[in-house]
């Protein structure tokens, strides 16, 4: 077998990440690959840092390649190792800590660094850039103390940083040198509309403001001094005035460097063994800071490395501002120039603005504000240099109108040619997506994302992808990618959960107000879900809203078809006693309980109890030490056990004792849907642990922990979560996975559905590999239990919610005829 060539990559951002994907797709075994990453982590979607800052997403949501991916592709990733020098003669790169690697081919992907204005005070603690996760973490930490933030720079990044900090609760001022915001992308009018929208969010904007210095107090930042004499107090200052290509090591190594590392159309530098890709590159006099051109370069470079011939000839770029609630799109070039004309559409009351810049009857630039649905179409016309003279009168109204087709978004997408671009970030065309949907039988947006990458980066083309699904699948497409929670909102469960945290919403009316619910007080679908989300998010702070609970959870018993209730007392681990059975027998006699049944979860169910009798039934059961079994709740129902080492000749551990321990630890906790558990003392599995939400199989060496099983509407065997050698460790794992489920799942989503949605592997990583995270989840569960382990039956026996059980008036003895 021939020795594989050594490929070393310096940098682990989005451009080299994409380059590797493309390379591995073309020739998976061509190179022995080593990556040096100055950041101590895996590759993530940098353009999604803004949603992380605003708490609409988490870091885990934006990881592109996780550790497993590098392992699976046999790639050596040196995390947190910054390359100090390149020896081109010896073909070796060396990191600051001395780690070295030799190469046959070297790819420089050093990206860019934020531009820091060299004013006095720029190096004070509290002055931050906005470039990587460390910056975001620093901003999040600062925002926890509230206070004032000044963002220097009113461009794309500055505004996203400002919006994020404002959503985190800071008082934010943006100062911008130019007269209007985002002047590189927007004309004056659109800049003005944007300013209004930004100010409407409560962010102050100062334009034509030149920073003179950053003032200090107690060794850290205290404010920003503007040239005109104003002093803005600040607890943090974020500089987002631009980026410059990082070309230092290339320059030191003697490569040709202009503004960035100079490359030709094959992305080769002045040394044929060294290529460069991404933001560090200068190509045909251009440096790019947007993802689409980087991905185009990545694809070209991958093809070249794989031995194919490909060339990159430059990109037309478009941008979207990623601030929730502000829709802005711009593409191409719209500077005033000789021979250029423009078409402008304004609808101030609807906040809509469109401007097209034309040259020789071709669109060269487009700015859309408010309604950006036609962005992809205009962008396509720009890139193709389409002659628009025939539709010139109507082109500004967008594709639906200009094309003569009805104003139906699906028809608009249908009219796009196969090579029309849908996903700008990843350069994915309509034809590729339609083909993937057909050939791979994709059914939803997630599938398209996974297989084509379309809408996998900034996500703004999700609507277009959905329309392609509709077009390809017709009625078979269930836009369940993000179905709204209910008819009261357009938001899906995931968005609502995130926004509850991001916007610090603590009551149901707050959620409905802030998230613009369309009904006055919700409906029977959203209210129980919101009540759960608030309860799970703010334990101890949120007051449970009884009227937003389904009747079973409101009265702590199960409603039956005739309007009577069934009562299931808790029998820890399925163990009972003579006293308990006697109490149950007495209750049966005293209240004429028509049916007494043993359930599948090893409990006794008393059926046919009148609602008025419930408190009295509970009082009698409480007196014998029996408490609510939560058989009615989206909660821990039962832990089913076998007799384990107590009695069984095959038992390997104390499965009964452990089952009881789990149940005593976890009862009372509310969960997105019901949770059933079981502990089996040996692999013979008498308690049927492998079809439960969480199951334990005891073995000689400890505890095998299973999860994501089901034996209801669907039948599904569990998957193994991991192995624990002690009972304590097993408990910690079980509790942590339940807490993760409590924090991530959608209301009414069983554990197996949640696991399928987020991925079993990611659950395993978070619980089994990341011990710190597991412990934090465990702690959060314990904290929330402080407020939930109160027997609801005892409370009602004491008179709580008495109105529930008593009629308001009894007129039965009052004869109508009297």
């Amino acid at each position: 077998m021939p020795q594989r060539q050594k490929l070393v990559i310096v940098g682990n951002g989005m451009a080299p990440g994409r380059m590797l994907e493309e390379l591995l797709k073309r020739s998976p075994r061509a190179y022995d690959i080593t990556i040096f990453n100055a950041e101590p982590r895996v590759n993530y979607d940098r353009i999604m840092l803004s949603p992380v800052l605003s708490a609409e997403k988490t870091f885990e949501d934006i990881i592109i390649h996780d550790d497993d991916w590098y392992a699976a592709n046999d790639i050596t990733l040196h995390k947190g190792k910054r390359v100090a020098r390149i020896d081109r003669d010896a073909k070796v790169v060396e990191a600051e800590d001395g780690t070295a690697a030799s190469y046959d081919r070297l790819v420089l992907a050093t990206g860019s660094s934020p531009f820091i204005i060299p004013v006095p005070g720029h190096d004070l603690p509290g002055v931050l850039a906005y470039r990587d996760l460390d910056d975001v973490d620093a901003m999040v930490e600062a925002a926890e103390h509230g206070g004032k933030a000044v963002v220097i720079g009113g461009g794309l990044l500055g505004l996203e940083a400002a919006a994020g900090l404002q959503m985190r609760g800071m008082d934010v001022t943006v100062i911008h040198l130019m007269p209007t915001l985002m002047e590189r992308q927007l004309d004056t009018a659109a800049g003005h509309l944007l300013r209004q929208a930004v100010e409407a969010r409560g962010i102050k904007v100062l334009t034509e403001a030149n920073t003179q210095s950053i003032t200090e107090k107690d060794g850290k930042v205290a404010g920003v001094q503007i040239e005109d004499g104003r002093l803005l107090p600040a607890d943090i200052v974020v500089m987002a005035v631009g980026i410059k290509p990082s070309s230092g090591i290339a320059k030191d190594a003697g490569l040709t460097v202009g503004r960035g590392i100079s490359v030709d159309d094959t992305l080769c530098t002045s040394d044929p063994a060294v290529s460069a890709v991404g933001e560090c590159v200068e190509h045909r006099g251009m440096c790019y800071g947007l993802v689409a051109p980087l991905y185009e370069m990545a694809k070209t470079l991958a093809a070249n490395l794989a031995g194919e011939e490909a060339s990159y000839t430059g990109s037309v770029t478009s941008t979207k501002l990623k601030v929730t609630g502000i829709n802005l799109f711009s593409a191409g070039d719209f500077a005033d120039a000789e021979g250029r004309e423009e078409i402008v559409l304004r609808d101030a009351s609807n906040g809509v603005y469109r401007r097209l810049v034309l040259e020789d009857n071709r669109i060269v630039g487009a700015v859309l504000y408010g309604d950006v649905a036609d962005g992809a179409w205009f962008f396509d016309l720009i890139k193709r240099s389409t002659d628009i003279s025939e539709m010139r009168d109507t082109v500004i109204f967008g594709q639906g109108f200009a094309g003569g087709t009805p104003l139906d978004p699906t028809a608009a997408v249908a009219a796009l040619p196969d090579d029309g671009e849908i996903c700008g970030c990843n350069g994915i065309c309509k034809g590729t997506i339609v083909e993937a949907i057909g050939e791979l039988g994709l059914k939803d947006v997630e599938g398209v994302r996974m297989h084509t990458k379309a809408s996998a980066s900034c996500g703004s083309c999700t609507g277009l992808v959905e329309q392609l699904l509709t077009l390809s699948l017709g009625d078979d497409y269930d836009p369940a990618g993000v179905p709204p929670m209910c008819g009261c909102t357009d938001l899906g469960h995931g968005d609502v959960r995130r926004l509850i945290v991001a916007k610090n919403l603590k009551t149901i009316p707050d959620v409905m107000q802030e998230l613009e619910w369309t009904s006055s007080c919700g409906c029977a679908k959203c209210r129980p879900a919101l009540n759960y989300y608030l309860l799970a998010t703010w334990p101890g702070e949120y007051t449970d809203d009884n009227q937003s609970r389904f009747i079973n959870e409101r009265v702590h018993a199960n409603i039956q078809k005739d309007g009577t209730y069934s009562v299931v007392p808790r029998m820890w681990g399925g163990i009972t006693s003579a006293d308990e059975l006697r109490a149950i027998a007495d209750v049966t006699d005293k209240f004429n309980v028509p049916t007494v049944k043993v359930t599948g979860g090893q409990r006794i169910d008393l059926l046919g109890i009148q609602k008025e009798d419930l408190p009295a039934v509970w009082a009698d059961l409480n007196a014998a030490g029996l408490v609510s079994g939560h058989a009615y709740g989206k909660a821990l129902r039962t832990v089913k056990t076998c007799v384990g080492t107590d009695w069984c000749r095959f038992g390997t551990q104390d499965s009964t004792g452990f089952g009881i321990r789990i149940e005593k630890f976890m009862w009372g906790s509310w969960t997105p849907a019901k949770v059933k558990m079981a502990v089996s003392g040996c692999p013979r599995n008498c308690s049927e642990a492998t079809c439960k939400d969480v199951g334990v199989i005891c073995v000689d060496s400890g505890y095998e922990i299973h999860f994501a099983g089901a034996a209801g509407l669907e039948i599904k065997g569990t998957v193994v979560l991991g192995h624990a050698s002690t009972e304590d460790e097993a408990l910690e794992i079980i509790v942590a996975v339940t807490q993760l489920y409590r924090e991530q799942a959608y209301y009414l989503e069983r554990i197996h559905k949640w696991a399928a949605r987020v991925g079993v592997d990611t659950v395993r990583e978070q619980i089994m590999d990341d011990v710190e995270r597991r412990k934090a989840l465990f702690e959060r569960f314990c904290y929330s239990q402080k407020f939930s382990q109160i027997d609801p039956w005892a409370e009602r026996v004491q008179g709580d919610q008495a109105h529930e059980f008593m009629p308001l008036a009894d007129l039965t003895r009052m004869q109508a005829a009297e």
Partner: protein
Amino acid sequence: MDTDFIDIGTVEDVPVRGSRLVKTPDATIAIFKTMEGQIFAIEDKCPHLSGPLSQGIVHGNRVTCPLHNLVIDLANGQADGPGGGPNGKCVKTFPIEIMDGRILLKPFDVPSEKVA
């Protein structure tokens, strides 16, 4: 005194977005109070499979039946959906009057004739 209307309790006795029951020889009547504090009285019996509507979740001027989620308009007893619910049937509503914070209910259909 108008004998048709019977004082059954105060507005305060009924929880907001909740209900209380009034039992009569003919029917069980559910007294609902909406978010806005409006009081409605309808028979506690879903036209679908007789589910106890009083046990449902109240939203706007409507209630969702706890058994199979039929949505009933409290003002006119009509069900959501084409044809106004199963077999076009709707829930019986009862007249209500509020006086000085007390709820007066007219629970019987034709008391005057019966009296006569």
